[in-house]
């Protein structure tokens, strides 16, 4: 009896979670005339791919998509390149006094700020260095935004590796860097994967910064591009939905591929953070 309730609850949760997705997918496949038919056509409508063609043949959505890919990838790589060594340093080196803890807390404190607080200063700063409406400027912002997360997550992964393993490698003939690259990094690979996927997803979904800091088509990302389909004269539901479905796919692929690592990585961060 108890099991029935559990399954029923799970089923309800699933329906609630997936209903908007289902709605999105169906709208993207419906002819314009069917999109708001009443009663709604849940199934059995005439499917069409015209919205996909419309969205991606015109060129702008393809540009947004490419921009999003470049941004997500470059900001993730940059955050890892800076954050992983920083995390290693915090996990392994003795800092005088309690600096070790303090530095970590200061790094984390930037995540406690609501992002919107930083928007105006960021806008002014980027304008000053002529990086508004540029992918580079946005990539810098995303990197800065993801960096604390990388440091904190990777620090707990590094701390999980017994330091004797590294010491053994150094006595076996490795330099400190060699031990890090050839012994420690392979051991924290699950952590690296989880951290990278998380950064990718955050950058991919990000809307607020992209909206304020880019206004030209050439620098727009997918979320902003989709939102811009709501214009003064019309709302292009079909194209928006088609683009939304396409935007969902990479995240789905990442998350599925890294599911195992994600659960472990995130819960670890929660416990040890």
């Amino acid at each position, binding site marked *: 009896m108890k099991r029935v309730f559990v399954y029923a609850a799970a089923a309800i949760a699933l329906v609630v979670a997936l209903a908007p997705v289902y709605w999105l997918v169906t709208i993207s496949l419906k002819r314009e005339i069917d999109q708001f038919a009443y009663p709604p056509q849940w199934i059995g409508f005439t499917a069409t791919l015209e919205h996909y063609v419309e969205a991606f043949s015109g060129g702008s959505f393809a540009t947004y998509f490419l921009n999003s890919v470049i941004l997500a990838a470059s900001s993730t790589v940059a955050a890892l390149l800076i954050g992983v060594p920083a995390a290693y340093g915090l996990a392994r080196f003795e800092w005088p006094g309690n600096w070790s803890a303090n530095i970590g807390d200061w790094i984390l404190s930037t995540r406690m700020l609501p992002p919107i607080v930083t928007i105006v200063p960021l806008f002014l700063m980027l304008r000053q260095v002529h990086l508004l409406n540029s992918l580079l400027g946005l990539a810098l912002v995303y990197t800065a935004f993801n960096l604390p997360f990388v440091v904190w997550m990777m620090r707990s992964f590094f701390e999980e590796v*017994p330091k*004797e*393993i590294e*010491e*053994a*490698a*150094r*006595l*076996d*003939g*490795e*330099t400190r860097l*060699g031990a890090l690259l050839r*012994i420690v990094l*392979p*051991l924290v690979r699950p952590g690296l994967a989880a951290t990278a996927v998380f950064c990718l997803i955050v950058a991919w979904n990000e809307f607020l910064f992209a909206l304020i800091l880019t206004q030209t088509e050439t620098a727009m990302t997918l979320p902003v591009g989709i939102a811009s389909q709501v214009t003064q004269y019309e709302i292009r539901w079909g194209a928006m939905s088609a683009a939304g479905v396409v935007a969902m796919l990479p995240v789905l692929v990442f998350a599925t591929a890294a599911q195992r690592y994600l659960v472990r990585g995130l819960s670890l961060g929660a416990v040890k953070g």
Partner: protein
Amino acid sequence: MPLELDRITKRFGAREVVCSVSLTAEDGEFVVLLGPSGCGKSTLLRMIAGLESPDQGVIRLAGADLTRREPRDRDIAMVFQNYALYPHMTIARNIGYPLKVRKRDPREISAEVNGVAARLGLTNLLQNRPRQLSGGERQRVALARAIIRRPKAFLMDEPLSNLDARLRVEMRAELKRLQHELRIVTLYVTHDQSEAMTLAHRIAVMRDGCIQQYDTPSNVYHRPANTFVAGFVGSPPMNLIEVPECPDATLGVRPEDVEISMIDQPGWTAARVYVTEEMGNETLVVLTAGAAQITARGPAASRLDFDTPVWYRFRPGKLHWFDKASGVRLPDHPPSKPADSRE
């Protein structure tokens, strides 16, 4: 190649964990650093390995000054308490790693690995990963990784303490044999005095960062330098007794040098049995004599009930005298009037 420590000092903050330790281990010698936890013996070992740097002092191996060298440039191998195997590599790659880092020819490495694995009985495990191995097997892999490149010195940090009791005794003998065959100077850290006694050519007993005594196991046992060594080495430890006739000295007697009799004899002292502990091959008898408790080691048959009245004496010529204030060993008879009225 001799290993030489010259006035090594290490502080953590204001606390001095190793204070001016000097010690020389001769070529091929097996030296055990023995002491309770927190006495600085592991820190000393880590300084020799290059994992910590001493605040003062010089470390020399085969005449060369190592003090400021990187661990990799010291040609020293170390075995850790938790084995510190590389979890993501097979056993063969673990063992061969020191050679691989040195860019040796892969065929040569594989031949060396096979040789060492055969010596340590690991041949069938070479393709496994560390997590598939038992504690004893992991320990042997750690040893194999240490010996494969024939370093100038071995350091071992409580290598047997994670093994169960039976395996520990087995590995202890194996280790002694291996060191004898390789004849490489070895520094071995332990808090287990039986490991120290059985393995060492010489034992350095440490306490609070200082060496209390550095001598052969026999001398450490039979001529302890002070009351700390007397109480730390030997199981059960030496009886340390306050003697009213000698207010400035402490008397030390090993349990095997306490004789027990059921009848009163001239020169023997009356006592009562506090408890007896049968060990199988021997029996420990704890006596209450006045305010003092004295442990005696007797043959297996000596079964004495609680509170049995008995008489005891200390075997003549087997007494140790220590200065009461400093604990330092005194010449064999007490300086003031002899307290041997019982003998």
